[in-house]
């Protein structure tokens, strides 16, 4: 990468002009352009999903009793009777205006647009994601900084082991473990296992379980749910997602700070007799922001994948659950819209991460 840049600056006059453009702005623009191209190609892929449908799809959806006229009507509705390029541009144009077409579940006289199906679900998913991010990011940064500060202590080892284990757990395992914990609050005392334990142990376990708040294990939510009630009911999915993403973020924060701590200027600060906490917060952290922000954005993007499974476990009415249901009933327009929403968010978050890490890169900020 560096070699390439050096070669470009070496080959003549036009580069003298290009050098005057702010390198940060230039790299950011390049990255933005690449992000837009990616989004464009991804939209083509998602669009062609419908073109890849098997030929007799219309017949299969309408069932045995389909007349040639109804088959032709459905094909016209999906647009299979027009050339693909024309279809793509009308599709993407409508998408940009928020018209995602109508679901295959709609019948004559009862049209269900994809937009009206997705909109409330999207709000719920965003609610869950934002709520999780607000808890998970500060928690991960705090734990990471503490682990770097007291590295190789028992605290560090404990946090490391726990996070390494939660990273390798599937989301639904974590989710059901938590649900089980909440439920055992009520059922533990009556189980055979509790009776086989000594009384004091059983009582203390029961007491500990009772400290856990009784979060609802099914996230029943509709548009009328008041805000705090919504938070309360979304608590379980949110805690599950937090556990899943905190691990990775925390480990990367720790690694980034420890990496910084081995540089000479930190030794200097140490020799001046500064306290370790001040060294980490004032000297190491500012230079470690770029990798940390990247990993935070990456994990927020990962939330999108985690959300699908967790929403299904807790029956939370979000886009993930909608997508899974649509995949099962092979309602392609809904699947397309969900995939586009997820992909666009994912690309956008990665783009933001890249731009932040470019903008905070000191080598680009102070060109020679």
């Amino acid at each position, binding site marked *: 990468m560096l070699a390439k840049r050096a070669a470009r600056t070496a080959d003549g006059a036009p580069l003298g002009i290009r050098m005057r453009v702010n390198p940060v702005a230039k790299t950011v623009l390049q990255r933005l352009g690449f992000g837009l191209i990616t989004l464009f190609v991804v939209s083509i892929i998602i669009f062609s999903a419908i073109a890849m449908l098997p030929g007799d799809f219309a017949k299969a959806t309408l069932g045995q009793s389909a007349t040639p006229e109804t088959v032709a009507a459905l094909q016209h509705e999906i647009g299979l009777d027009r050339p693909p390029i024309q279809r793509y541009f009308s599709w993407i144009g409508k998408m940009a205006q928020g018209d995602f077409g109508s679901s295959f579940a709609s019948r004559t006289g009862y049209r269900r647009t994809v937009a009206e199906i997705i909109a409330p679900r999207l709000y719920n998913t965003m609610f869950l994601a934002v709520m999780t991010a607000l808890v998970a990011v500060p928690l991960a940064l705090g734990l990471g900084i503490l682990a770097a500060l007291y590295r190789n202590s028992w605290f560090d080892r404990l946090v490391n082991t726990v996070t390494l284990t939660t990273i*390798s757990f599937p989301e*639904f*395992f974590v989710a059901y473990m938590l649900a089980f914990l909440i439920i055992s609050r009520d059922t533990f005392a009556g189980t055979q296992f509790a009776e086989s334990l000594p009384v004091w142990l059983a009582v203390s376990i029961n007491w500990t379980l009772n400290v856990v708040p009784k979060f609802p294990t099914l996230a029943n939510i509709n548009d009328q749910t008041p805000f705090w009630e919504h938070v309360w009911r979304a608590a379980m999915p949110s805690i599950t997602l937090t556990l899943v993403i905190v691990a990775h973020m925390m480990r990367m924060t720790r690694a980034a700070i420890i990496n910084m701590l081995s540089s000479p200027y930190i030794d200097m600060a140490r020799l001046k007799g500064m306290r370790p906490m001040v060294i980490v917060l004032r000297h190491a952290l500012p230079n470690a922001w770029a990798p940390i922000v990247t990993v935070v954005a990456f994990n927020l993007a990962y939330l999108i994948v985690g959300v*699908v499974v967790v929403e*299904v476990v807790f029956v939370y009415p979000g886009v993930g659950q909608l*997508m899974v249901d649509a995949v*099962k009933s092979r309602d392609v327009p809904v699947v397309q819209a969900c995939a586009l929403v*997820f*992909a666009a968010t994912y690309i956008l978050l990665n783009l933001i991460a890249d731009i932040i890490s470019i903008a905070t890169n000191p080598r680009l900020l102070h060109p020679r």
Partner: protein
Amino acid sequence: MTSAEPVIQTTGAPRVRRTRRSRMRIALKKAPLSAWFGMGVTLCYVLVALLAPLIAPYRETQVFSEAFAPWGHEFMFGTDQLGRDMLTRLIYGARNTIGIAFATTIISFAAGVTLGLLAAMYRGWPDQLLSRAVDVLMSIPSLIFALMLLSIFGSSITSLVLIIALLDSTRVFRLARAVGLNVVVMEFVEVAQLRGEGPAWILRKEILPNILPPLIAEFGLRFCFVFLTIAALSFLGVGIQPPSADWGSMVRENATLITYGDVTPLLPAGAIALLTVAVNFVVDWFLHSTSGLRDEK
């Protein structure tokens, strides 16, 4: 200079080159507890998967009259929602879930490594084309992509394996290309080319042995990832279809028991989690011992 030579000769005793087996034995002896644990658990899983019909008390799809039976002597972990023995399903689940994940990883590696190394060897427009295609494929979360493709092609085991292998080979391609690029510029590759060896021979005999350690470690990680993706898809009900026993769908089918404080649904989920943890431990140790990689000083 001349005076130093005799000293070198006396200290430089003829060094016996260790055989691969003895080197492996030494490395194993130094393995930490976590790696031993990981290897032991993985071995158990493989044995259970291979010997499933011998170990299992009943047949895979044998249905008994009592659904959701409690744990007991007849059915060790009770029965599932249709009255099939849970233990038997767990054992056969090892076979199906691990087998399918393993096959997928093999396909993904065969495709990814071959294309990655070819791209590294030839560069030029094929490399550009493949790399950009991989960039685009990787810009969509693979679970979402897999869901979309499954909605088009339907959930059969063949399409499941091929779709996930395709999505996963992108990561393998990137790694193989990156490590391959470091090796193709070496002199011995050039020598082989001048000797007139064909590209397939150079790939297999000159490049592949030199990039094997990172690829093996990646194989472990990719296996975990594929395994978890398939489990997640089956859990969502669009992966491996009934009546095949599979851990992901077993969790889903018996999930209602959780609300009665029964741990049964956690067994298949735990089986998935334990295997991933075990493989991760082994990979972790393997990476440390082959690359001298250390977390920090």
